[in-house]
């Protein structure tokens, strides 16, 4: 994964637990550095190792760590020079829906600029005025909780009141990939 992801994990840990906690986590995870170059590609194993060590050190289940990271990612990328990506969309439900509908295309264009990037496939399907089904396929397993956190972060950024439900892939239920059902609260 690109270093930007590991930097986001670092930012999450440091903001909540300080620099020393991050240093200890890197050491315990067997990572020989505490700083990452944002645009450099690193092995996925480093990211998984860091998440695992954060979970072990802070005593939080990995799913909770991933969820917290997903939520933090929105804030972090907004701060680390990608604010303009979000600012193209107005605050509110329609802005969020539009953002989700264009997320896949954004990934496509990023893939062209960053050839080593392997983002997940995301497709947003409108079910009704207040419901979306988000189709999610990734070659990296187990990151569903992170998407839940991402959605929470997006709800917060776009200032919408909404919930999401993660439906993992289930052949018996006719799902060959993960889905997320987003439901917006009724206004008023």
């Amino acid at each position: 994964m690109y270093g930007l992801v590991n930097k986001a994990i670092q930012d999450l840990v440091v903001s909540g637990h300080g620099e020393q906690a991050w240093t200890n986590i890197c050491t315990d995870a067997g990572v020989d550095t505490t700083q990452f170059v944002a645009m450099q590609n690193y092995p996925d194993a480093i990211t998984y190792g860091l998440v695992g060590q954060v979970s072990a050190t802070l005593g939080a289940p990995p799913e909770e760590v991933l969820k917290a990271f997903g939520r933090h990612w929105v804030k972090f990328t907004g701060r680390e020079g990608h604010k303009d990506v979000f600012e193209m969309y107005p605050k509110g439900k329609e802005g969020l829906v539009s953002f989700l509908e264009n997320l896949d295309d954004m990934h496509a264009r990023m893939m062209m600029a960053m050839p080593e990037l392997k983002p997940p496939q995301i497709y947003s399907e409108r079910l009704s005025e207040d419901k979306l089904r988000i189709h999610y396929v990734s070659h990296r397993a187990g990151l569903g909780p992170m998407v839940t956190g991402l959605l929470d972060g997006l709800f917060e950024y776009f200032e919408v009141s909404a919930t999401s439900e993660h439906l993992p892939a289930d052949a018996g239920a006719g799902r060959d990939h993960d889905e997320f059902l987003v439901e917006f609260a009724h206004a008023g």
Partner: protein
Amino acid sequence: MNSSSNSPTPDRLGFDAELLDELFPFHIVCDDRMQVLQFGPKLQRVVPEIGSGLSLFDALKILRPSFVPDCEAICKRQEHAFLLESVAGARLRGQAIWRERERLILFPVSPWVTDSEEAKRHNVSIADLPVHDAAREFMYIVKLQRDAVASAARAYDELQSKKQEADRMRDAAIDANRAKSVFLAMMSHEIRTPLNGVIGMLDYLMNGRLDSEPRDCVSTARDSALGLLAILNDILDLSKLEAGKMDVITAPFDLIALLDSLASLFDPQAKAKGVALRVEAIPDLHPRRSGDGNRVRQVLVNLLSNAVKFTGQGEVSLHVSTAGDIVRFEVTDSGIGIPAEQAKHLFQPFQQAHAQHTGTGLGLAICKRLAVLMGGKIEYLPAPERGSRFVIELPCPALTEPLPLGEGRAVEIAFEGPDAARLAALLGQAGWSVGGADPVIRFTPDSTARGEVRCIPWKAGATPRRALPLQPIDQARLGKLMAAQTGLGANPLAESVGTILVVDDSAVNQRVAALMLSRLGYAVDLAANGEAGVEAASKRRYDAVFMDMQMPVMNGIEATLRIRSGDGPNRETPILALTANAFESDRVDCFNAGMNSVLTKPLQLKALAEALAALRPAVVHP
């Protein structure tokens, strides 16, 4: 090969097939069932599996957009970028355009290669790409980006390496600094300890009965030893300052008393040379200040010493004024002055303003560093006519707490003038009611003694006995004389004998202390280490305990803590530290352990007497 030139679709497409080939040599046209109808003349080189009549998905998969399994889904994503990938991993990028009338999808795509190696692998060259195609520039941009990232990664690695090296150097510096501190402490202790014996014994002899010639010899030896001590102190002070080991404290001190003591110290020397000494301050100078009184005194002693040394006639003056919290000391003399060339290096170590004069050349360097350490500054200015002028400005905020002395009792000053005003100010600040009814003390002038105006404090109704020189007003002597004349406060001259416990592992130091204390009228018990001291202190009450710091078995700090925390008879007894080390941190350790005072070796009788006097009413000494 099925290219557009032989394709049945040109009419269906509705535009020039040759133009399409030229603009998009890698294009693909499919029907609404995703069957390939035609493709560009260069596509098959990159995607050999493509063929007319075959399904698009037989040769290519759509990486992006996601979830576009059929024509209908593709048509809904026409605003999105399309990325296609062949079986062999060759990638194409472009878009999808649905032609409703002809029911065709046109994919104007071109190879997506990021470097020359990939281009070669998929049989693509730059020349294959049309001029308008940004893919040409894209290859260069990606390369630049990769180079920039690699450069950033290398810079980061180098930074990490430098940081590790800096950490190693920092640790080494900390170790070296620690070693230097230990060395300074050891040197201070090892040199001062024998010097303590030398000066102490000579001091003792000086205060005994000696004939004239032996007295001169002892005096010379003592002065030489004191000179050696002064040089040692200078060297150690400068070492400490340069090692960053000198601390300054912030504590209340009496500025007027300090000035008075300087006047007393230098008055005899100045008089002996026929030089006038003037120590004066602005009339409303508040005496109680916050700062490091000892260091302020050290700086002023150095400057006044130089001023008296280098002045053969005329005057040496110290003038003190304030500007807010800053106290300004101006030391001026009418001496030989300092040549302009020497003045430039005045505050550097080992610089002598006048080569023919002796000295280590460290005094002004120490003054400068001390002034800076205290948050102030010192500068040399040529005197208006001749001589030298040093100006020192130090932050010493005034403390409003008055001197506890008068407690509202009345005093009469029966003369006028600026000195009377100064005396009134001092007494007023000390809580005396000047000009109040039923004065307890009267000050009257005595103009008979050598023509000087002196004031005589005497108890109202009693016969005056002792006179106090008015110029300069010595606050310490004033207090003592007032107490002696009136009986107010503890009488410093009262005779009393007590017993003092001296805890020191050095036999020489024990003997020096015992002799001095005996001279002051005390009986002395001795203990050779802290543990023995604690033992002795548990058996009987002492009037004071003198505690050495560095001792085997148990050191002075530990022994003091034991005495203070125990239930023995000396829990509240004054304990005075005897230390050869003069580090501020050692003094702090002493006070934190419960000691009352710190005496620096080598011991001198006068300092010993003053230390004991300062402890009254706990201790009363002869």
